[in-house]
């Protein structure tokens, strides 16, 4: 298969999968409970409830209901978010900046640490650094994020008093405008270094917590692909021509080992997405993860549906980009398929 055909095929399947996902999300809202339960008050009479059901089209056939909902989603109308007392679309945009900022910082940490740790272990196979890498990567996959977050809080907040929960110091927050909702960016735009340092300070613990799982995945992949590359003939050739080991590693082996590592970035991104729910609860971070957790506890179906649909499409999109990128980087994948 040519790369172009592969990309076209992936792009053709993409909308189908999104439609499939939206059907699942819709079905979710219809299997359990009443989708408008959260709008119903104690004082309402049966007639009023019936009228409400009628207004939201709950007496129509399911396919009609689905189309009405999907049409709404396409025009940016995802209903009313009861937990935040505003339209879902608006609530989503108000909170996405906070989650995005957290996820971007966590991703940077995970990629740098993952590649660093993987190289550190892979280049010293079966020696102490390698065992350290192995322990870190298996712990990362087994670590309950909620517990890790609490441990960090016990140490750095309760005992050392270095950090606290929340997103910024309220007095510093008030000194600058927030056009993007990404505080570090807002501070840079305002040219306010104090606000920037404050935003970074509050980011440290949550982004480290969130990064742990993804770091583990990346380190593991980097380590094994580096080990594999170091066994290749071109590495022997580079050594034979007298290149110092450091350069063999940096210029040849590590560069090629990065290619397969790209594939796990999609997986790592999924880890980050899922992790935001718990991390945002514990660190009182006002993003979409905590919004979802609130909605889950109060049965706010419009919010749950919007969150699941939004994160799934994001996840699919990242994976699509990663796959296409990998196909370009390593043509054997496609041609061998």
């Amino acid at each position, binding site marked *: 298969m040519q790369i172009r055909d592969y990309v076209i095929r992936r792009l053709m399947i993409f909308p189908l999968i999104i439609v*499939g996902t939206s059907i699942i999300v819709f079905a*979710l809202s219809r299997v*359990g409970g009443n989708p408008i339960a959260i709008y119903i008050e104690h004082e309402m009479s049966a007639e009023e409830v019936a009228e409400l059901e009628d207004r939201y089209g709950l007496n129509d056939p399911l396919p009609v209901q689905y189309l009405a909902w999907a049409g709404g989603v396409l025009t940016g109308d995802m209903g009313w978010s009861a937990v935040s007392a505003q339209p879902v679309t608006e609530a989503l945009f108000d909170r996405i900046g906070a989650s995005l900022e957290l996820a971007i910082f966590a991703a940077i940490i995970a990629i740098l640490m993952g590649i660093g740790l993987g190289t550190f272990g892979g280049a010293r196979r079966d020696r102490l650094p390698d065992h350290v890498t192995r322990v870190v990567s298996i712990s990362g996959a*087994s670590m*309950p994020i909620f*517990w890790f977050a609490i*441990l960090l809080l016990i140490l750095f907040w309760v005992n050392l008093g270095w950090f606290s929960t929340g997103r910024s110091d309220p007095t510093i927050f008030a000194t600058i405008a927030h056009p993007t909702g990404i505080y570090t960016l807002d501070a840079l735009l305002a040219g306010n270094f104090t606000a920037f340092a404050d935003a970074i300070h509050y980011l440290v613990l949550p982004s480290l917590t969130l990064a742990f799982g993804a770091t583990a995945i990346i380190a593991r992949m980097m380590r094994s692909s580096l080990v594999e590359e170091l066994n290749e003939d071109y590495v022997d050739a580079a050594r034979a021509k007298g290149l110092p080991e450091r350069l063999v590693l940096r210029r040849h082996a590590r560069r090629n080992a990065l290619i397969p590592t790209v594939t796990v970035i999609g997986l790592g991104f999924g880890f980050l997405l*899922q992790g935001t729910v718990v991390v945002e609860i514990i660190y009182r971070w006002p993003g979409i993860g905590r919004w979802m957790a609130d909605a889950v506890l109060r049965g706010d179906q419009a919010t*749950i549906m919007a969150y699941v649909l939004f994160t799934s499409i994001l996840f699919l999109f990242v994976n699509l980009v990663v796959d296409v990128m990998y196909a370009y980087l390593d043509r054997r994948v496609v041609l061998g398929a």
Partner: protein
Amino acid sequence: MVDLTAPPTPAPVPIQGPWAVRARRFAEVSREVLRNPTTVIGLVIIVLLLSMAILAPVLTTPNVPDPYQMPRDWGARDEPPGTPGFPLGTTTTGGDVFYGVLWGARTSLQLSVIVVGITVTVGVIVGSLAGFIGGKIDEILMRIVDVFLAIPELIFALAIAAVLGPSFGNIIFALAVVFWVKYARIIRGQIIHIKQNEYVDAARVSGDSRFKIYRKDVLPNSITPVMVQATMDMGGIVLTAATLSFIGLAEAGLAEWGVLVADGQAGISAGKWWASTFPGLMVFLWALAFNLVGDGLRDVLDPRTERR
């Protein structure tokens, strides 16, 4: 350079034929698995955790009427570890952390066995239909699998459990809906690969029925990656369930590790670290042990996929 003194690498023994062959293969695999120290550590932790689960009713007095509910002693709130009668301390609501840790192991064991049992069965059936029959059925089933894989696991399970309402039973159901997909995909890939072997053609030529070929030749040779994944999921399922119950989707007061960590969270700012720390450590050890063993199994059973 070839080292002529090294023993020749043994040819892989296909898992079929009489029981003697299988027993020998099992002994070989066990020996190989036990050679890896981290796998042994994982096995030891698993044995300890399972003994905790089994001995919970002996080591503690079961709460009546429901032993899976935390006993409350309102006279002993926020007691630190080492208090007489409460070796791991108590929670802000007077729950015995030691009791929760032990009975939590029992909850986790039941949970993981039930969910792994259901998901492996469903996944193997769906994946076998897709891989062995192929064609249109394969295409349809795999697109369904793609859609299920499109939603991140934890978020999917969270949404299902949320719309069904908070209860541990619903968490189990949600996990079963989410986790079968991987098995379907793994077994399908394996079967498509195994089907191309000559011994399958031989069986077909000799007149065996399709079901017999599937049962005797294809399935037994395709199942090892499923076993590796199932071992890891024994850990992953407990981890995911604990996350869901931490968020608040299990019944309050259930003797389950995620619920306990959530209970203990309120006390940490006042320096009461124990109520969250011990149950969380149990989740970590449980997941870690099964991951270590799964990892070791994979290295031995299927060296090709080591890097994944």
